[in-house]
């Protein structure tokens, strides 16, 4: 049993500071913003798969995204609401991650000479740097397919043309695949971790939660990879 020694030395007991933003609260912010982003990924993946329905359907879907709620709502209102929610979620996710990363660095300034992992997975070990790479990928991805800045078709082409222009280049498809596999691992650990952080896991559910996390991560990764590889191998043109 742990024996509590009540020391009377003054100044020994440091008072908690900045307690409202506790590490657990930051984790909850991370979990909730993560869930919003996972839900968006599922919708985005379903949209991408419309590429298999052909140029017209895909471009029509893209156009619909910009006119949801018309004419009740003017222009791309719904799209902008989605974009703002996503920006806030991404911002909160990064803020919590950076803050906890710094806290972890401070918590162990001098590392071990020898340290072996007993339980950690590759996915859990790569959450932070994996997250940085995914963020870099998202920036490139927006420049490529949303703004057309780094795309051969540019902004003038239709969304379908931009998809073809990108993924017919094997380098782009491979970079896309690497980022998505990283994303899959990020989701694999993230979904499990979010369940824990929100206090929804227990011994009975633990196995199910882990299988579900793997399943969701796999479906999202494979779902996103179908389109670029179909383009690369000429199944879509």
């Amino acid at each position, binding site marked *: 049993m742990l024996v*509590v020694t009540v020391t009377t030395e003054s100044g020994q007991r440091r008072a*908690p500071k900045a307690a409202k933003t506790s590490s657990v609260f930051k984790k*909850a912010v991370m979990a909730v913003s993560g869930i919003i982003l996972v839900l968006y990924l599922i919708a985005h993946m379903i949209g991408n798969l419309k590429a298999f329905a052909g140029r017209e359907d895909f471009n029509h879907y893209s156009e619909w995204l910009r006119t949801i709620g018309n004419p009740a709502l003017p222009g791309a209102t719904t799209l902008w609401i989605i974009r703002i929610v996503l920006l806030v979620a991404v911002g909160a996710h990064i803020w919590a991650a950076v803050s906890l990363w710094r*806290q972890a660095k401070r918590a162990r*300034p001098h590392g*071990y000479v020898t340290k072996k992992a007993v*339980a950690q997975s590759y996915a859990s070990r790569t959450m932070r740097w994996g997250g940085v790479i995914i963020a870099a990928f998202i920036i490139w991805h927006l420049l490529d397919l949303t703004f057309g800045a780094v795309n051969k078709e540019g902004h003038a082409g239709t969304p379908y043309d931009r998809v073809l222009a990108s993924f017919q280049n094997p380098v782009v498809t491979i970079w896309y695949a690497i980022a998505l596999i990283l994303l899959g691992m990020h989701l694999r650990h993230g979904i499990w971790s979010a369940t824990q*952080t929100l*206090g929804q*896991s227990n011994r009975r559910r633990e196995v199910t939660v882990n299988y579900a996390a793997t399943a969701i991560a796999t479906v999202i990764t494979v779902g996103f990879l179908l389109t670029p590889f179909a383009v690369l191998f000429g199944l879509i043109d």
Partner: protein
Amino acid sequence: MTMTEDPTRATTAPHQERTMRITLRVWRQPDARSAGKMVSYKLNDVSPDMSFLEMLDVLNEQLIMDGEDPVAFDHDCREGICGMCGVMINGRAHGNGLHDGAVQTTTCQLHMRSFKDGDTIDVEPWRASAFPVIKDLAVDRRSFDRIIQAGGYISVPTGTAPEAHATPVPKKDADFAFDAATCIGCGACVAACPNASSMLFTAAKVTHLGLLPQGQPERNDRVVNMVAQQDAEGFGGCTNIGECSASCPKGISMETISRLNHDLLGALRAGTRPKS
């Protein structure tokens, strides 16, 4: 006690016991302010039946005979129940996970038969800014005591013990509370955690007390204040990696962490704020 574990060797060749040669690389640090380094020592007569701490005792006898400073390390009961001992052995807290299927244990219950003749073993202290090194392998773990003081208690009236049947506890809750209560506060969870987080320790206490009727009055204050204290002590945040639970000599489960999170978010919603 050790004899019963391998009766054949004890009865057939008590005096011709196989001994091992071990090279130890031990973290030597004279005090909290000085820099430390790994120092190599050779031991030639290590019995496989020695516990890891007995092997360190042999090293210290050798160092004293040579007029050198013995290695400081914490220990007390040497029965795996007090939580005093604990070092990183080959990069693993208490040496847990050295072999597949090995039972989770404390440093004092790890025996030299877990190693091979000629092995080199790295021995380091727990590393966390909340566990400053006092000397060599001994670290100051009073931060754990302060987390306990922040809320790891229940208020009970003094006087005659109440009738036990007056407060029934469901069997399931009693079992889980007891599992959590087996935490000995050794600090292996912090040592093994890539974030140096004390989450498993705090979660064990929150689960243990929060599951029982006697722990209900302070339940919200407890979790909020204990988490605030562990942050203030400079421990890292939990990323649910699971190194802690896998390294815990008592096998405290990750479920306790989920319970802590659940209690904390509930308490924050109910408006409970930490005492400052």
